[in-house]
């Protein structure tokens, strides 16, 4: 019997697991995918929003602002790449100026620190890459950029190190209220727990429906991006937003923590698992983005991708007990700024569980730190020390991002080891660069097979069915 069972290993589920792992509890996390955070947490803008967007007095506003504080603490403790670069909302006309004044007021009500309205001159002095047409901006110095996937991994890995169990390839198919506990049926057998948290992202409604008809409707909304070469990464030094207009919410242009430039997203209502890109949408993003930053060279695009927002018919996050099953807490409608709010969501849910009567005794030995080798970032001495320890730290596998075999092997032996090419990529950055894995994929492939003791033919790019290879040479039937 688990004390708490968490459905979903995205950033919402991971933060709950992390916050709960401080306490002497038996916690498990289930996910239907073969790796953690393969949903919305994998593909988004990666911005820790300052918090001037949500309406005051909403749960979203409160959790957003608290989330910023926690993100910086957690990132420092758990070795997550984060950059407190700040953000700007650009104004191009009188209507926009009006809008950013509103955002400023709202932000002040939400207790967002350091907000400032900039005039044209101040703006261009700060960001010379911005279009001359911009006449003012709202500066939010507390905004950050982060590696969202590693953020999620770091929290979940820390939970696992502190005793939480993770079950991947485990899809929840039924939930039964058993009075003093809940039984959760999956393709991999039943789990029993005193409390169940559902953090199923775009599938929140599907899971809630296993208990009762959800009081909300998730409207999966796909957003596409360009990720540009590092040579374009210095076009701007802050996250640049636009004001919403009749065409949409505007697109953002931002550096990433890896030094690339990210441009997007748009908004397309569609399937919950549809992460495809389309040319018309991408073209529209290009056109919108150069309004903010005219110099962007889209020929330096290295990857297009899309993520699906768990938008809904609700304006706020929905975090509540199910009426038909009080031991089931639904964490739903976690749209943007969900990544930002995540750790505050975890805190909030822990408070809810305490109020429900879950006893929270702190663990005697709690590990609240994490470190992974990053050869590209350490001093030459440290690098040589690591290579002495394991010569594979000297062998570079991904030439674009300069990821070493040692880092890949280390990742394959972490508490939440990857099993796929993309799983390795998300953990160490191999294949993230300009050649997009053209050179290193076969090498990473061999290392995974060797270290995990599986056949080359079994290694997948992503989910089962995405095997890279079809058959041994000369073995076609």
């Amino acid at each position, binding site marked *: 019997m688990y004390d708490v069972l968490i459905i979903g290993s995205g950033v919402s589920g991971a933060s709950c697991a992390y916050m709960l792992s401080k306490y002497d509890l038996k916690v498990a996390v289930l996910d239907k995918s073969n790796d953690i955070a393969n949903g919305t947490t994998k593909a988004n803008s990666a911005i820790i929003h300052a918090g001037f967007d949500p309406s005051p007095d909403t749960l979203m506003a409160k959790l957003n602002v608290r989330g910023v504080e926690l993100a910086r603490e957690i990132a420092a403790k758990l070795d997550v790449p984060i950059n407190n670069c700040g953000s700007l909302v650009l104004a191009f006309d009188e209507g926009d100026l009006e809008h950013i004044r509103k955002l400023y007021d709202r932000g002040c009500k939400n207790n967002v620190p350091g907000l400032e309205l900039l005039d044209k001159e101040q703006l261009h002095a700060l960001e010379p890459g911005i279009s001359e047409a911009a006449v003012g901006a709202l500066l939010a110095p507390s905004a950050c950029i982060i590696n969202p996937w590693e953020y999620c991994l770091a929290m979940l890995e820390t939970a696992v190190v502190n005793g939480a169990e993770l079950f991947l390839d485990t899809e929840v198919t039924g939930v039964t209220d058993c009075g003093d506990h809940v039984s959760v049926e999956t393709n991999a057998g039943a789990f029993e727990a005193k409390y169940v948290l559902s953090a199923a992202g775009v599938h929140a409604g599907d899971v809630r429906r296993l208990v009762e008809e959800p009081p909300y409707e998730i409207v999966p909304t796909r957003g596409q991006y360009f990720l540009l070469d590092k040579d374009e990464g210095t076009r701007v030094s802050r996250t640049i937003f636009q004001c919403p207009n009749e065409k949409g919410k505007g697109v953002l242009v931002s550096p990433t923590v890896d030094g690339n430039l990210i441009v997007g997203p748009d908004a397309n209502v569609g399937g919950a698992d549809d*992460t*495809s890109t389309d040319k018309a949408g991408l073209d529209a993003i290009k056109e919108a983005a150069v309004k903010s930053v005219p110099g962007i060279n889209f020929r330096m695009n290295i990857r297009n991708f899309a993520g699906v927002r768990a938008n809904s018919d609700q304006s706020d996050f929905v975090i509540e007990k199910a009426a038909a099953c009080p031991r089931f807490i639904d964490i739903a409608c976690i749209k943007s700024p969900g990544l930002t709010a995540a750790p505050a969501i975890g805190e909030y849910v822990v408070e809810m569980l305490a109020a429900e009567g879950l006893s929270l005794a702190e663990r005697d030995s709690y590990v609240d730190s994490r470190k992974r080798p990053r050869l590209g970032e350490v001093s030459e001495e440290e690098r040589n020390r690591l290579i002495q320890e394991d010569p594979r730290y000297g062998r570079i596998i991904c030439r674009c991002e300069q990821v070493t075999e040692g880092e890949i092997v280390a990742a394959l032996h972490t508490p939440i080891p990857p099993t796929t090419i993309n799983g390795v990529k998300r953990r160490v950055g191999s294949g993230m660069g300009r050649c997009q894995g053209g050179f290193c994929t*076969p090498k990473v492939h061999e290392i995974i097979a060797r270290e995990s003791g599986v056949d*080359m033919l079994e290694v*997948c790019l992503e989910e089962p069915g995405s095997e890279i290879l079809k058959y041994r040479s000369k073995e076609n039937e």
Partner: protein
Amino acid sequence: MSEKKYELIVIGGGPAGLAAAHSAWENGLRSILIVERDKYLGGILNQCIHNGFGLHHFKEELSGPEYADRFIKLVNETGIEVMTDTMVLNVTPEHEVYVSNTDGVSVLRAQSVVLAMGCRERTRDSVGIAGTRPAGVYTAGSAQLYMNILGYSVGRKVVVRGTGDIGLIMARRMKLEGAEVLACIGASDHPDGLARNVNQCLVDYDIPLLLRHTITEIRGKDRVEQVVAMEVDEHRNVIPGTEKTFDCDTLLLSIGLIPENELSKKAGIPLDRRTSGAVVYENNETLVPGIFACGNVLHVHDLVDFVTEESIRAGKSAAEYVLGGGDAVGGSDGAAGGGAADGAASGGAGGTADGGAGRDADEPPLEITNGDNVKYTVPMMARLSALEKTLEIFFRVTKVFGEGSRVVVTQGDKKVASFKRPYMINSKMEKIKIPVKLLEGVDPADGPLVVRAEEGGAAHA
């Protein structure tokens, strides 16, 4: 940190690096190091197990590994040092080479450097193919590596995008492996590869060729299930309503190569937008004195034989530079001109009258540029006094030229040279050798030498 200073460090152990190193040895250098990131020398040739290599250079038809092996043997017969399984992390304008391998990271020093890092393949994102991101999409090179080095096949029902030589050869390779190849698709109105490859790879194996089309979308969640091709107009814009879908499990992309000049940029070497490679002089020296470039890192070649020829020159030039005391000017204390800006003028020459480095330090270089119907030239600059018998210029035309066409070289209104060509095609590199005699009246001060291509007849005007 070793205090040893090599006369030459060659970065890259493919055909370009091997030929350059060997040529430098032949021309008198005795302390040469080749640094290669792979575990073996030979570069991309190791996975090119088809034949067709060496017809020009060795006058016989070899496979890629055989061609590489000839040069590896030559190198092994010399005292050239080889460091494999070693990645170069950085090169400075002062010829310091930072490397990483299983022994650690260290800095090596040299009097001269030859850059021979080759190129990488363009990806689906660089040409904007939309859709899903399933398994089953490979660059031709990685599919080739999986098949020819690791012994696995990547798919059963294949569409190939790209009709260059690599695309054609991979289409045949998949077929030989038992896969069905539905089409080989190219955007221009003719295949980009050599005619013999079109015959030997597509015609002989009944592989359909689909021209004036491009792939616009990939479908399939976990594995490729379908690709969508659309017709393109002469400007390569897709024509709405021309979608054709192919049910396949694999898409091979052979859509172009990009010289890998990350290290060149770190060394402060100016690059040329047309070639994506370094700006070089007639002797393959870049604008950073003592650093030379050759092979696919300089500009993308179709034939390894041309790579060899160019690299032999680069190796010889490096030897001349070192033996002529070129490095002494920059100073072995590591201040070789301080970067790119003044490189054009100083050229790293030793300033010796007989030209140990073969040239006059103050000589203004002659600029060489592409004119009508020519995409680029290599070199982009020449120091006339350094030329021996000819000025050799590699270039590509922008379209197909038939019987009677010409390559015309002019300076201002003055015609300098003209060469007849029976046939020229944009996908095949061309070469002209201008005899030094014809350049006698050419003064760099009178403007650039322009290379242009003309249809038959026009040249008589």
